[in-house]
């Protein structure tokens, strides 16, 4: 991430933000509401155009990649306010996550060539193992629209993992979860990182979660980076404390 800037009309949402995310780390991104965290995420997944700066992933610029090409590069994400495919089942949602790893088109699908059947079996196998990993077996065939919020969040996580990401972007995974669920989530995120060997970039308001699982933390305020370092360093940073007006309140 090098000097990324985004403007919406006259409003500067991100102003020259730069930081690195090292492979295999969990990096937390914090900041008060409106600090630009989600904007930054949306730049990473190319939903927003960056006005300036560049985003490099494994040395190559993301800005040349179309929106639908991001998943295939190995960047998976979840959304702040759930963006599941509501009419589909849990299994189907997770299977869609694997879309970028398969390639059969309309013609092959219409003729249902052996390639298509093989791909489908692999996708189902993948989805089933993730459904098991995230403890969703009991709801696998239910429509996601009927699920409680916490479960739906796990479905989103499973869907993101189905794309075999190298970098996982989690946008407020703890929002709407109760205290106990947040604890489990922290363990789960670390478990995912260790088992699947991926890198996690996490936007989160829940301070204790961010501080307990992150290797590094980046703090934003008004679209600028105000601090970066280990959780302890960032927590002690005067600008961070000021931004949160005694951030211990969280």
């Amino acid at each position: 991430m090098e000097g990324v800037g985004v403007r919406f009309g006259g409003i500067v949402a991100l102003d020259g933000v730069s930081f690195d995310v090292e492979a295999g780390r969990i990096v937390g991104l914090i900041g008060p509401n409106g600090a630009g965290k989600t904007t930054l995420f949306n730049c990473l997944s190319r939903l927003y155009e960056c006005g300036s700066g560049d985003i490099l992933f494994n040395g190559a610029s993301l800005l040349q990649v179309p929106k639908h090409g991001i998943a295939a590069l190995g960047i998976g994400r979840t959304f702040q306010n759930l963006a599941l495919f509501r009419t589909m089942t849990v299994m189907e949602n997770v299977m869609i996550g694997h879309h970028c790893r398969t390639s059969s088109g309309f013609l092959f699908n219409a003729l249902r060539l052996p390639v298509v059947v093989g791909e489908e079996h692999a996708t189902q196998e993948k989805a089933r193992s993730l459904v098991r990993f995230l403890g969703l077996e009991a709801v696998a065939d239910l429509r996601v629209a009927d699920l409680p919020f916490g479960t739906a969040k796990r479905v989103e996580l499973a869907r993101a993992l189905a794309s075999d990401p190298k970098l996982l972007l989690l946008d407020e995974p703890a929002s709407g979860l109760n205290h106990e669920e947040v604890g489990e989530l922290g363990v789960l995120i670390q478990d995912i990182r260790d088992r699947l060997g991926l890198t996690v970039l996490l936007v989160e308001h829940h301070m204790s979660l961010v501080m307990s699982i992150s290797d590094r933390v980046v703090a934003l305020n008004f679209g600028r980076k105000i601090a970066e370092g280990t959780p302890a360093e960032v927590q002690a940073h005067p600008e961070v404390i000021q931004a949160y007006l005694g951030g211990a309140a969280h």
Partner: protein
Amino acid sequence: MIVVALVLLAACMLPFVVSNYRTFQFTLALVYAIALLGLNMLTGYNGQISLGHGAFYAIGAYTAAILMDQYGVPYWATIPAAAVVCLIAGFLFGLPALRLEGLYLALATFALAVSLPALLKYHHLEQWTGGVQGIVLLKPDAPFGLPLNPDQWLYFFTLAITVLMFVLAWNILRGRMGHAMVAIRDQHIAAEAMGIHTAMVKSMTFGISAMYTGIAGALGAIAIQFVAPDSFNIFVSIMLLVGVVIGGLASISGAIYGALFIQFVPNIADAISKAAPWAIFGIFLLGFVYVMPMGIAGAVRMAVARLTRKAQNQAAKP
């Protein structure tokens, strides 16, 4: 599976137990079923509304008619030709339509359907389209000395194509691309983030949808043996949309129910009241919408679910 086999069996026996005129009507119902399946892929599965599929129906019909009338192409060979023409036309229309959503897309497609009859009447095209007069076609006889009259043969010809088109649609809709179509309808931002090329999938869906409707148009022209600009007015497009919704959105079997509805309910209405058949049709329409808000396919699905539950309860009791 058993249900499908039984329906197919019944469909094969049908022309031998009903009159030639009824057989012709069922041929048209099959034609509509193909058209509705195409429109349902676009509107039901992919969430793009079209008030203009009558235009693709007309393009398919005219492609078949012109090829047969002007170039002496055999009737069966006009079907793939109509398919290709409409696939391309639909895809090209789908590209600019990507920028439009909901009611705006409805208006754009409406514009297409409303302007096409005028284009067909355009005098510079008259040498091909026959202008206002249209084109009269000959009814094909059964080949290979089959003991079928032309109506029966055309019914079986249409039935075979219908079965083929339904199998292809079923394969698409349950597969990778079908899931992608629904994902775009449900949540297009997430679909894109999952690596679905939404622009490509949406315009291809438009193309395939138009292709289905065009094939139906070609079959319809062969069955009716006549095409004229005024048989493809905006009413055709509206009726197709009615059929899709009444049959059941995002349902393959819904296309069959919807087709039977738009083919036979106007006849029934006509039989009830010669004076105001469309008023009767309107009452039928209101009744269906009110009683079956998920379409006929939705109502059937719920009825089957209720019956199986009851059967399970019965079995559970000692």
